[in-house]
C-alpha cells in the first residue's frame, strides 16, 4: 500500500494537460460575494492591531479574484473574517454580503451552514491542515455529513468521486489512508477535494501553493481552476507572489498594511501598475518580461499595524514619496484605466513612464 501511496506527484501527473483561465467558462454577472469596507482589529497587550483597514471587493459567479500582498498585510485575516473563523477577541466592522445577506449579522448557526457548504477554504500548509489521526476518507466524508444527513457510505462515495476529480489515483484505497501517508502535493489536492465536496459558490484559497515544492505548485493551481469549473465556483486566490496570479485570476486586489492599494484586472496590474508598491512587487518578481535586471526586493519592512504613521503607509519605502505622502493618506481612487483604482497621490507619475518598475532600480543600474 505505502508503495503506491508514496509515488511522487510528478509521476502521477505525467498526463496532465495545462488548464488556464481562458480554457474554462467565463464569469457571469451574478454577484456572489460582496465585501464592503471591512475592518478588523485585535486588541492586544501592546495596543490595538489594525489588521484590516477597509477592504472592499465583489466576486461574481465563476470569477477568480487574486489578493496579493506581503505577509502581514491582512490577507488571511480578511478572508478568515469571511469564513467567520476569526478569534473571539477580533473586532470586525463593515459588511460581508453573501448573495445579498450580511454574514456578520447572521446567527452563528446560519454562519455555520454557509461555512464549508457555500464558502469553502483551502489553507496554506497542507502538512498541518489535515487532522493526523483520522483517515482522509473520514475527513472528507465528515465535510459532507456536517451539512447533510446521509448514510456514511454515500458520503464516502462522494469523497472518492472528489479524489478522482482532483487527480488522486486509486482513490478508493486512499480514502482509508492517513494524511501522513500522502505527499505534500497530494494533501493539498485532498484539501481541494474537501473544499469542493459540497459544491460551494466560493472557494477561498489562502496561499495554496506557498508551502509546496515548486514542481507541484503549477499543477495545484491548474487543478484549482479545473475543479472550480467542475463545481461552478468563484475563487479568492490569496498569494504573496504576483507571479502566481498571472493567467490565474480575472482581477487583482493588492493589499498593503491592511488596506487595498490597487484594484483592477489582471493585465493592468502587470502592464499598467498605478501604485508604486505594485510596481515594486513586479520588480521583485523573477523573470518577468526578462529585462535583464537583477531581482530588486523592495527595501525596508511594512509598518507596524499598531502605531500606523500618518500619511501613506508605503511612504517610508516609496521612491516617489514626498511631503504630501507623509502627511495625507491617499484614498483608493479611479486612475486612467476603466475600473482601475489605486491609492497613490502620484499615480500619474507611474502612468508617465514606459516601465514603472524603473523607480525601484538602484541609481547605478539606471545609469548603467
Amino acid at each position, binding site marked *: 500500500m505505502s508503495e503506491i501511496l508514496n509515488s511522487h506527484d510528478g509521476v502521477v501527473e505525467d498526463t496532465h494537460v495545462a488548464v488556464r483561465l481562458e480554457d474554462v467558462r467565463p464569469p457571469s454577472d451574478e454577484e456572489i460575494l460582496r465585501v464592503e469596507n471591512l475592518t478588523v482589529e485585535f486588541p492586544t497587550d501592546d495596543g490595538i492591531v489594525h489588521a484590516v483597514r477597509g477592504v472592499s471587493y465583489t466576486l461574481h459567479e465563476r470569477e477568480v479574484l487574486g489578493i496579493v500582498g506581503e505577509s502581514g498585510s491582512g490577507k488571511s485575516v480578511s478572508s478568515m473574517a469571511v469564513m467567520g*473563523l476569526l478569534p473571539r477577541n477580533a473586532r470586525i466592522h463593515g459588511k460581508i454580503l453573501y448573495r445579498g445577506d450580511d454574514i456578520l449579522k447572521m446567527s452563528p448557526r446560519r454562519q455555520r451552514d454557509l*461555512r464549508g457548504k457555500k464558502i*469553502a477554504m483551502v489553507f496554506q500548509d497542507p502538512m498541518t491542515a*489535515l*487532522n493526523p*489521526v483520522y483517515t482522509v476518507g473520514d475527513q472528507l466524508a465528515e*465535510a459532507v455529513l*456536517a451539512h447533510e*444527513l446521509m448514510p*456514511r457510505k454515500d458520503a464516502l462515495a462522494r469523497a472518492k468521486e472528489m479524489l478522482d476529480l482532483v487527480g488522486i489515483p486509486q482513490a478508493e484505497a486512499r480514502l482509508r489512508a492517513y494524511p501522513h501517508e500522502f505527499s505534500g502535493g497530494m494533501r493539498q489536492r485532498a484539501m481541494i477535494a474537501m473544499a469542493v465536496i459540497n459544491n460551494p459558490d466560493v472557494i477561498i484559497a489562502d496561499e495554496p501553493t506557498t508551502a509546496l515544492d515548486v514542481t507541484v505548485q503549477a499543477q495545484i493551481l491548474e487543478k484549482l481552476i479545473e475543479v472550480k469549473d467542475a463545481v461552478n465556483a468563484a475563487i479568492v486566490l490569496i498569494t504573496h507572489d504576483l507571479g502566481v496570479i498571472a493567467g490565474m485570476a480575472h482581477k487583482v486586489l493588492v493589499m498593503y498594511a491592511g488596506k487595498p492599494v490597487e484594484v483592477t484586472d489582471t493585465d493592468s496590474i502587470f502592464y499598467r501598475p498605478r501604485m508604486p508598491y505594485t510596481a515594486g512587487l513586479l520588480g521583485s518578481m523573477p523573470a518577468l518580461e526578462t529585462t535583464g535586471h537583477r531581482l530588486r526586493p523592495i527595501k525596508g519592512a511594512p509598518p507596524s499595524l499598531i502605531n500606523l504613521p500618518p500619511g501613506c503607509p508605503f511612504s517610508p519605502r516609496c521612491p516617489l514619496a514626498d511631503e504630501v505622502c507623509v502627511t495625507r493618506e491617499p484614498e483608493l481612487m479611479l486612475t486612467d484605466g476603466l475600473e482601475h483604482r489605486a491609492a497613490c497621490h502620484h499615480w500619474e507619475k507611474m502612468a508617465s513612464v514606459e516601465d514603472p518598475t524603473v523607480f525601484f532600480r538602484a541609481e547605478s543600474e539606471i545609469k548603467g
Partner: protein
Amino acid sequence: MIAFIARRLGISVFVLLAATIIIYVMTALSGDPLADLRQEQGPDREEKMRVRSERMNLDVPIPVRYLQWLGGLLSGDLGVNREGQSVAIILGNALSATLQLVVAATVMAMLIGITVGIISALRQYSGFDYTVTFMAFIAFSLPLFWLAVMLKQYIAIEFNTWLRDPVIDPPVIVVVSLISGLTWGALTVGTQKARLTSFAIGAAVAAVFLTFLSATRWFADPGLGTVVIGLLAFGTAVGVTALFAGLQYRGPLYAALAAAGVGTALSAVMPGLLVDPTWLELFGLLLLTVAVCVGLGYALGGLQRRQAVTASVLTGVVTAGLIFMDALLNAFSAYSRRMRGRPIATIGSNTPNFRGDFWQLTLDSATHLLLPTMALILISLATYTRYSRASMLEVMNQDYVRTARAKGLPERTVIVKHAFRNGMIPITTLIAFDFAGVIGGAVVTESVFGWKGMGNMFLEGLRTVDPAPVMAFFIVTGGAIVICNMLADILYAYLDPRIRLS
C-alpha cells in the same frame, strides 16, 4: 501487536533485572541487619544473631545472596523475611488493598484531572481557569503526608461526629452555594448578564439541594430511589447526546432516552434481585447493559447510528452505575450502625474479621479506601490538569482544528472529535511516569492510615535491612509500572496512527 507486546516484555524483563540488582545491593548495604540484636543484653543474644545470620545468609557476600534470591524468584519463591515469615504470604495479604488504592487514585485523578484541564483550556483566562491554575500550584506544593494527616483528622473524625446528626449548618450551605454559583458563573462565556444568571442558578440549585439533604437527614440513611435515578439518567441521556452527537438529529437522542428509560424502570426492581451478588455477576450485568444499549442505538439511531450507539451505551453504563450506587447507599445505615456510628475509617484497609453480604463488604472497603484515595489523588490530579490544559491549548491552535471549523462542523464536534483525541496523545506518555509517582505516594499514604499494605512491607523491610520484602515490593510495583508503560504505549499507538507498534 502480539509481537510488540512480547518484545516489550522481553526488554522489560532485562530492565527489571538490572533494577533488582541495584535495589538488592543498595538495600543490603543500607545498614546492619543485626543492629538491634547487638544492642540486646540477654543471654541468648549470640544464638539469635546466629539464627538470623543463617536465615539471611549473612555469611556469604552480597552478590551471592542476590543470586540466591534471584534463583528463588525464578522458581517462584519470594523468600522469607528475617523473622522467617514467608514473604509471599505477607504480599498476598497486602497486594490487593494496595493495588485497589493505587488504581482507584490513578483512574480518578485521570478522569477528574483531564476533564478539569480541558475545561480550563477551553475557558482560558476565565476565573475558572485562574482558580484551577492556582489550585494546581497549591497541590504541587502540598506534602502528601501532611494532607493525609489533615484528612484523617478533620474529614474522617469530624465527619463521623457530624453524621450522628447530619444537619448542614446554614453558613455551610451559604458558602457551598456561593462556590457553586461562582464556578458556574466563571464557566459561562458571554455577557455580564449571562454570567450573573449562571451564578444565580448555580447558587440557587446548590442551596435548594443542600437544604433538602439537610432537612431530610439524607446522610443518615442515604439512597437515590427510582425518582432521582430517573432524573439523573434522563439528564445524562440529554447531556451525553448533546456532547457526542448533538441534538440536531433525533436518532441518537431517542436511543439515549430509551436507554435511560429502560434503566430507570429496572432500578425499581434491581435492588430486590441484587441481594447478595458477586462481582462476576455484576460484571455480567454490565456487559448485558452494554449489549442492550448497542441494540437500542442501532435500532433507533437511523443515519446517525454510530453516535446513537455511543450515546445510548454511555447513558446505559451511567444509569447502571447509579443503580449500583443506590444499592450501596441503601446498605449504608446498617453498616454505619455496625460501626457504632463511625463509618468513615481512619485505620487499616478493612475492618478486621468483618463479615456481611456483598454490599456490607463493599461498603467496608469503600469507607476504608475513601480518605487514602482522596489524599493520593492529589499526587497526580494537578499534573493531569496542567498537562491536559497545556496540551488542549496547543491543539486548539493547530491548523487542523481551523480546518475542522472551516468545514462547518459544530464546535462540539471540533472539540470532542478533532481536538480531544490529539490532545490526549501527549497525555499517554505521562501515564507511566505518573503511575510510578502514585506508587511512591501509596507508601506514604499507607503509612499515615496504618494500612498493612505493600508500603508497610517495604518500609518495614527497609528499616530492618531485610532485602526480601523490599524486593517483593519492587517486583510487584516495577512489574505494574512496566505493564502500565506498555498500556500507555498501546494507547498512544491507538490514538496516533503515525505510530506503529513494532
